[in-house]
């Protein structure tokens, strides 16, 4: 699925010599509806985290629209995800080809690639590839020699997690604070500049050339039926070979960590203590739950939110779970955009509680307090504008529930009087 590792894989010449832009030509010779149908048939579910079928998303666009805009979500900000980075760094033309196909299928005139501000080298690589594509006539007034016109721009973000949410991304593209919008109207009806807008993830678009070239049947033939197609899995933390690996969605977390062609086992003989299998927001697994399948459905059986970005971070047995709890709580505390009260207040209070627990002044009732805060933050639909508060509650809740004995033991072993001292100093 990718040309990663091939010499000069970022250049148009090498990409074309390996069969590049054949799929885009094929797609542009088809009717736009036929392209949408093919993608629907392939059951291409969004790779960005929510797993929403891309073809269905395109189907929401109003039939009588005159202008459509395509946003490519390259704001990969979920820690510890880096598969989009790998794709953009090593295979930018595949993304451009996917963008052309998606833009054609949705009849978009402009494609904006929203790239996070932390990506500098990747920005230059992708910009160069886009320039090459313009020069070759693959983008611009006459895409690949047809009458279809498409402009493609990179729009750089500036460090905000919430801009990976599609309406947050749209606000940010409009030059505003990246605070998500209330839905409906969904972007497909009224998005960027109040036009019908499609937002797709980099990895989703990178699948399109392969679907067009080899057909939907080839795609659905890979992996389980509800989670068709290959997927990029990231693994990081103290494993022997952290990195980004491609597989069908029937592998387990254990395989991802231990297989020699993947994570390659743990570093220096350490043991697994906990794994966040799908980015932080999805929640945590204990060492007993490593047989979870990395597909769109199975994570729910382990009280996780979903597959997420399929980026696993492994925590080893020497790391204090309180450090993990504090790190996770801190992340959401800093990244909440502040629009919805329960998210703004909830995340920052959870951060403070977690910090206190880590500093050795935890109280037993803090654990229930964390759970209660989490429960009140957005487990019910409609409580908050975007999914960030849900994303914040799942890891905190699963850490507290699944590692409660360890947290309790840690709190019990604190020196006497510490809690009182800290609380007194705070007041």
């Amino acid at each position: 699925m990718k040309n990663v590792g091939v010499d000069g894989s970022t250049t148009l010449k090498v990409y074309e010599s390996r069969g590049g832009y054949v799929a885009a030509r094929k797609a542009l010779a088809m009717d736009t509806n036929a392209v949408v149908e093919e993608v629907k048939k392939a059951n291409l579910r969004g790779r960005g985290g929510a797993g929403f079928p891309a073809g269905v998303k395109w189907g929401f666009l109003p039939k009588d629209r005159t202008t459509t805009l395509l946003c490519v979500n390259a704001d990969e900000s979920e820690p510890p995800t880096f598969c989009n980075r790998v794709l953009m760094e090593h295979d930018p033309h595949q993304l451009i080809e996917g963008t052309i196909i998606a833009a054609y299928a949705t009849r978009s005139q402009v494609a904006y690639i929203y790239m996070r501000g932390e990506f500098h080298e990747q920005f230059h690589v992708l910009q160069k590839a886009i320039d090459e594509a313009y020069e070759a006539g693959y983008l611009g007034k006459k895409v690949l020699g047809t009458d279809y016109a498409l402009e493609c721009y990179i729009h750089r973000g500036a460090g905000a997690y919430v801009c990976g949410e599609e309406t947050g991304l749209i606000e940010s593209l409009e030059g505003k604070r990246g605070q998500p919008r209330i839905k409906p109207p969904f972007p497909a009806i009224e998005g960027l500049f109040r036009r019908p807008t499609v937002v797709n993830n980099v990895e989703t678009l990178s699948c399109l050339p392969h679907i067009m070239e080899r057909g939907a049947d080839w795609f659905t033939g890979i992996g389980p039926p509800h989670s068709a197609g290959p997927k990029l899995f990231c693994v990081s933390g103290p494993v022997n070979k952290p990195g980004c690996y491609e597989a069908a969605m029937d592998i387990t977390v254990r395989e991802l960590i231990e297989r020699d062609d993947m994570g390659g086992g743990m570093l220096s003989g350490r043991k697994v203590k906990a794994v966040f299998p799908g980015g932080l927001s999805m929640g945590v697994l204990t060492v007993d739950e490593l047989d979870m399948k990395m597909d769109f459905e199975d994570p729910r059986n382990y009280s996780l939110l979903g597959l997420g970005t399929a980026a696993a971070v492994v925590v080893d047995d020497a790391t204090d779970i309180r450090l993990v709890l504090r790190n996770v709580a801190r992340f959401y505390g800093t990244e909440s955009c502040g629009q919805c009260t329960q998210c703004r207040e909830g995340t920052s209070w959870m951060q403070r509680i977690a910090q206190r627990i880590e500093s050795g002044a935890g109280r037993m009732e803090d654990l229930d307090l964390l759970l209660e805060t989490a429960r009140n933050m957005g487990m019910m639909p409609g409580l908050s504008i975007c999914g960030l508060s849900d994303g914040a509650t799942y890891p905190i809740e699963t850490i507290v529930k699944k590692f409660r004995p360890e947290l309790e033991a840690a709190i019990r072993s604190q020196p006497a009087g510490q809690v009182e001292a800290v609380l007194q100093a705070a007041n």
Partner: protein
Amino acid sequence: MSWKAIDRNQAVVDADAPPLLSEGVREKILSYTHRYETKRAALLPALHLVQNTLGHVSWQAMVEIAALLDIQPSDVFDTLTFYTHFWTHPKGEKVITVCRSLSCEVLGGAAVLDALKARLGIEEHGTSSDGQYSLVTEECLAGCDHAPCMLINEKLHKNVKLDDLERILADGDNDRVDMPRSDLFDAPPVAESKQPASATEDDSRTTDD
């Protein structure tokens, strides 16, 4: 999110000051506006450009950008303060951004941050007295497969080791792409000493089975 108050007793922008943005920068900002349906949408690219040229976005720069894009200076301020990558006051010549997300922290990111604080004599968000370095932390830099990592200006340094820091600081451009993995994981990290004595709920299984 952050709130910043302006001291209203003092004029923030000198109305008679010569224009801060050069003709070239202005033209470039205006060229961005053709990409979007509204002029305001060019704000983020404009802020990136101004910060890359001037090192920071000053009050006067905000006023001038606002005039170019037909919006209010407060709109520029509103957007700017949402994003962590823009700053309104000068920072050091080299801005060091240390990743503090979970992958990096488990593999010794905190030790890197502490070493940098000690070496430069500054705290987070501080700037060294000679104006050379600023130190900031940031959530995931998406370099988790090479943790711990940090950015110096635009250059991502992967697999950072403590004894490597001097070399990185001395020559920010040296290419360290194919560095071996950091040894920080096996050094005694600060966090490990806090490990409670009691056993975890289940560590009878190893990863090898």
